[in-house]
């Protein structure tokens, strides 16, 4: 287990240095498709105070979330790009802490999906740490299949639900 964490971190650092990896064969669906995410893309400036979750969401424009394949938890190049943006934000607002929420789609058993969600959240967190964010500023929480973002029972919905979402805490 320890070995795995180290390997992940190593790969991540490499990815940072030599940013261009093989093009992702299949991109996760664009987050804009997602149904009920309330944050407005453009709000009147000054609506959200810097360092708040609302401000983080506005700034990230969907890059607060990374997506995974079925039963997978690897961070691909598109995920890395999103996590770099998150890391930039967390570097700029050094006082904020963050939680990475890990999720799974509904087509699995409850306990396993909790473990899988934790694994995904941890993969995202490890990458942020590899980018220099102090580990003690980032916690993880798994919701398994209990908090779907897309409510359909189809592959498009599942793809949106297999995710790790970074949330800023003040």
């Amino acid at each position, binding site marked *: 287990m*320890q070995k795995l964490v180290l390997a992940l971190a190593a790969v991540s650092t490499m990815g940072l240095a030599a940013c261009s990896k093989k093009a992702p064969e299949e991109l996760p669906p664009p987050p804009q498709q997602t149904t009920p995410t309330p944050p407005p893309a453009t709000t009147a400036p000054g609506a959200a105070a810097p360092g708040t979750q609302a401000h983080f969401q506005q700034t990230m424009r969907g890059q607060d979330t990374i997506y995974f394949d079925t*039963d997978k938890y690897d961070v691909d190049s598109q995920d890395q790009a999103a996590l770099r943006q998150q890391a930039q934000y967390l570097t700029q607002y050094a006082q904020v802490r963050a939680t990475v929420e890990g999720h799974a789609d509904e087509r699995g058993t409850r306990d396993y999906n909790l*473990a899988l969600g934790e*694994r995904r959240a941890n993969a995202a967190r490890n990458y942020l740490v590899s980018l220099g964010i102090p580990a003690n500023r980032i916690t993880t929480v*798994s919701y398994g299949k209990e908090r779907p973002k897309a409510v359909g029972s189809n592959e498009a919905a599942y793809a949106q639900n297999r995710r790790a979402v970074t949330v800023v805490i003040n």
Partner: protein
Amino acid sequence: MKLFLLPLFASALALCAGPVLAQVAVPVTVPPAAEAPVADAQDGGGLTGSVTDESEWQDLGIAIPAFATDREQATPANAQGTTALGQALAEVVYSDLRNNGLFRPTGPGSLPRPAYPQITAPAFDQWRGRSTEMLVHGYVRAGADGQLTIGCYLYDVQLGQQLVREGWQVAPSDWRRAAHRCADMVYSRLSGESPFFDSKIAFIAESGPKDNRVKRLAIMDSDGANLRFITNGQSMALTPRYSPDYSKIVYLSYLNGYPRIFVYDIGTGRQTLVTESQNPTFAPRWSPDGRSILYSMAMSGNTDIYRVPATGGQSVKLTDSPGLDVGGSYSPDGTQIVFESDRSGSQQVYVMNADGSNQRRISFFGGRAATPEWSPRGDQIAFTHIAGNLRVAVMSPAGRNMRHLTDGWQDEAPTWAPNGRIVQFFRTAQGGGETSIWQVDLTGRNERKLDTPVNASDPSWGPVLP
């Protein structure tokens, strides 16, 4: 629990009541319903032996007319009095005995109501004309103290003979338990199997939309009646398990924002963390003796299975694979644990010794295999088979003879009836995600939904009540 067992001795004079659970020395003497039948009932003739061929039993007709009452009386158990209560009692017995793949019961709705004296002296000729082989009679009386006395008799109609009888004194609120005991008596006597109706289920009550569902810890009787919420839904609750003595429920709660296992004490209403940890803990399970709890804990994304004394203390790590090792269910003798792991690349079922040694995979039939639960009889493991849809299946502890019991879109998380003949599980509807608890017998042919007032998932079947 105020259930008093009234062993009905074949005494010519009276039915002697010895309160078994309460340590009361003075036996209560309850007058007989009518002249007590002098029969060699308890161990005479009748049907014995284990059920192997289901079809043989499917056609065994059992008539269950309304229970009679000596006189109509008010009772807190039924707003309309003891006559209506007698009807309700028979309905519960009928509902228990139907759809188990063993019997062909007929309920009180379509049967004549016997008079009170007929309970101990049935009109056999009349019942023979109704092509029923077995007859259940019962009575209910309300005592001056409000307590109910409920008697239950099983007759072989063709022989014109009583096979077995029992009686109970219960508080009005426990009237359904007497009916379940009656159904258990009939079921055990006719099938040779252990009883299971008088038992309870811990589960998760669900409400609200799919993306913001409220999940509350709740308990109910084995047939879905007497639902009681234990948590208020502010924190998500998941995967409860009754302790073997019903005194506690171990479950997962997001009480402080993060998933942790709590032990809820039903008597005191207090709950404690099963282990102090900065890491998420989930998938709790009791050992058969109730002295330890298995749980899964994630560290740095990896999940392993641990054991901790139920009263708290040092945890012992049982698995150490780089995969997700989750859940765990003890064999009835406590020597082995069946669990799931994706160490091979996908969820599969493994068995290990109780100390974690000798871990070996047993599921080799394609698809994924999850949530294994060892039968209380030890001879089967129920699990969720994932191959496209999720279905409940059983296999031997060696991983052989895999059989699907259900064919839903998403059926998962089987839990065994105390006698190992029935499996409950929960079914999720495609799209809306509504959940409901179902049960199915080991043939897979007899399936039914529990009638719960709210969506329900994660059933955990406790043992037969003391």
